[in-house]
């Protein structure tokens, strides 16, 4: 057993009693995870993304952070102008003074998991959607997560204000922390919620392992944002797992602007006719960062639909991976699935591996996919220069415009503005580019 797995076992021995919820479930998950270990590049799904550097890392479950330190970090990283409820977690622990839950909508429940596990049916709500055999790191989350959020909307409840969940990781020089956000979203018939998961952080190396589960009952709607702005010392693995019933709709925005090694899995199951999912993604990799997005949409019923558009901007010596799989089950006729992945390479040293995958067992389907890897459009570049803009500004502007098309789809203005600003900040000549937005 390697150092990482040993450290996890020790933490289990010392701290299991203090973790909320069903200990037996946690223990089963831990034993299964320890037996399998971390995924390796020998596995097809992990071919391009190595977690080998973590094998010798002794991980620590974070202890409490002082309130002053937590609040200062929230001030630095949080999106300030968002209306609506919010839960804030720093190093996996709830920071009540930073939360806002007043003015709640009847029928909408937003809870800290640590507070509700062990009560009612909360434990039963875990691991309902996630395919633990496929997403093995989710087992580690189930075994050792410290806190998270549960969002529930009862029948017909429609909320406008987004629910903001801020997960901050403050890396520590003394020990590599394992921070494990957990989110459950459940919408009953006809309900509608919008949830922003904002994952960000600073400081020394840390590992973030997040799991989100979404259960959408018939006719309900979930709009989900996963905004990742980790420090360039942080490794992050996340899986978003959703099950959509008849006429349910899910829109996912996945934005990756940070992190050293990042792996995101999205797995959506469309289990009844009329279910519809839209996946929007943007990754901007710089330096030596590595961002891997694997998405999987299972069309398990006829008349289901999916649309996916992921865009990447790669700079420096960074690397990105996109693997988008669409599965159409045998009796899932009349489905529609469209997918595209476009990448802009800003240097000669960056690398993208993009792979769309279709697995179709039905015969009456409409599917399309496409991937591009390229440089900026020469005609557009000439157009801007012919208007007097110098070449660097024109390049920066077109790069920004490429990313902005994804950001423009975010329906929440303060969030979109903040991300636009971050993207510009990552581009050369950013001061000049700001004048254009």
């Amino acid at each position, binding site marked *: 057993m390697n150092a990482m797995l040993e450290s996890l076992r020790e933490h289990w021995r010392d701290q299991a009693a203090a973790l909320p919820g069903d200990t037996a479930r946690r223990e089963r998950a831990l034993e299964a995870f320890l037996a399998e270990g971390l995924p390796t590049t020998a596995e097809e799904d992990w071919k391009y993304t190595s977690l080998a550097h973590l094998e010798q890392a002794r991980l620590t479950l974070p202890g409490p952070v002082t309130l002053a330190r937590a609040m200062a970090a929230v001030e630095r990283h949080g999106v300030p102008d968002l209306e609506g409820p919010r839960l804030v977690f720093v190093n996996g622990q709830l920071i009540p003074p930073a939360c806002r839950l007043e003015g709640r909508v009847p029928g909408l429940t937003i809870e800290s998991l640590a507070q509700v596990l062990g009560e009612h049916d909360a434990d039963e709500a875990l691991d309902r959607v996630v395919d633990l055999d496929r997403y093995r790191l989710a087992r580690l989350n189930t075994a050792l997560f410290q806190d998270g959020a549960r969002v529930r909307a009862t029948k017909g409840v429609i909320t406008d204000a987004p629910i903001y969940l801020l997960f901050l990781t403050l890396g520590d020089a003394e020990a590599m922390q394992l921070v494990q956000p957990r989110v459950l979203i459940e919408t009953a018939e006809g309900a509608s919620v919008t949830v922003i998961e904002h994952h960000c952080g600073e400081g020394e190396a840390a590992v973030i392992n997040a799991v989100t589960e979404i259960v959408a009952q018939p006719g309900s709607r979930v709009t989900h944002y996963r905004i990742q702005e980790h420090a360039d010392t942080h490794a992050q693995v996340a899986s978003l797992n959703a099950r959509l019933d008849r006429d349910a709709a899910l829109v996912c925005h996945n934005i990756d602007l940070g992190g050293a090694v990042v792996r995101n899995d999205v797995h959506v199951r469309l289990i009844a006719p009329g279910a519809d999912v839209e996946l929007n993604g943007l990754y901007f990799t710089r330096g030596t960062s590595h961002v891997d997005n694997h998405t999987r949409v299972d069309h398990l019923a006829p008349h289901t639909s999916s649309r996916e558009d992921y865009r990447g901007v790669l700079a420096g010596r960074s690397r990105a991976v996109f693997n988008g799989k669409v599965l159409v089950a045998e009796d899932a006729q009349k489905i529609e699935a469209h997918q595209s992945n476009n990448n802009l390479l800003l240097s000669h040293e960056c690398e993208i591996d993009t792979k769309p995958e279709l697995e179709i067992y039905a015969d009456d389907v409409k599917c399309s996919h496409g991937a591009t890897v390229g440089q900026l459009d020469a005609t*557009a570049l000439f157009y801007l220069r*012919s208007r007097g803009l*110098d070449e660097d500004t024109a390049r920066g502007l077109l790069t920004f415009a490429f990313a902005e098309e994804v950001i423009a789809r975010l329906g929440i203005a303060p969030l979109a503005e903040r991300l636009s600003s971050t993207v510009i900040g990552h581009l050369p000549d950013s001061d000049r580019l700001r004048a254009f937005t």
Partner: protein
Amino acid sequence: MLKIKDLHARIDGKDILKGLSLEISAGEVHAIMGPNGAGKSTLAQVLAGREGYEIVSGSVEFCGRDLLALAPEERAREGVFLAFQYPVEIPGVNNVYLLKAALNAIRKHRGEDELDAYAFMKIIREKMQLMQMDASFLNRGVNEGFSGGEKKRNEILQMAVLEPKLALLDETDSGLDIDAMKVVADGVNSLRSPERAIIMVTHYQRLLDHIVPDVVHVLADGRIVKSGDRSLALELEAHGYEWLQQAVGT
């Protein structure tokens, strides 16, 4: 203002311009007509500085400077403007910001102060009225979702704002219905001035009914094969380009 001498240019190893010579003075409007593939658009692109064309020989002098030695943005700042045949859509970049950046880049080059937002908007409103454009257009992405006519109007709006010394209009009439053509032509006509030269590249003579040129050139197989006044365009219209090719023996 502009002196093109024996210009030879090629792209991807293919000769397009084969000894083109042309002189234009300030205040003049020249039309360059010719069949498809004659090199009309290449000439406009080469003058504006599009990369990818290889200048084999010849020279282009603009206001006493070697135009071919300048980058596209330097040409723009010196006063060359190309109205594109196919204006590019750039979602995510706002029309109004592009106009402002373009104008300020040119003003800065001339040693003038950059305009503040108020002064800039005053100019824009005036020019938009001229081009009969709606204010909502300003906050849209550059040419994003514009109809063919709107794109061409936007090109002339940019020209009106930037006030170039030399304007190159590349097939500005293509894709325009008669009403849109009138708006575009009125815009161009209002920009005729003793200090400004205009070159219109066009396949059809109908644009010349609305913007009457001082000189008409016929470009065929990479060279100017005939020059004349307005009546040359009408003759071409009546007899077609084949007549001309026989007449000049190409």
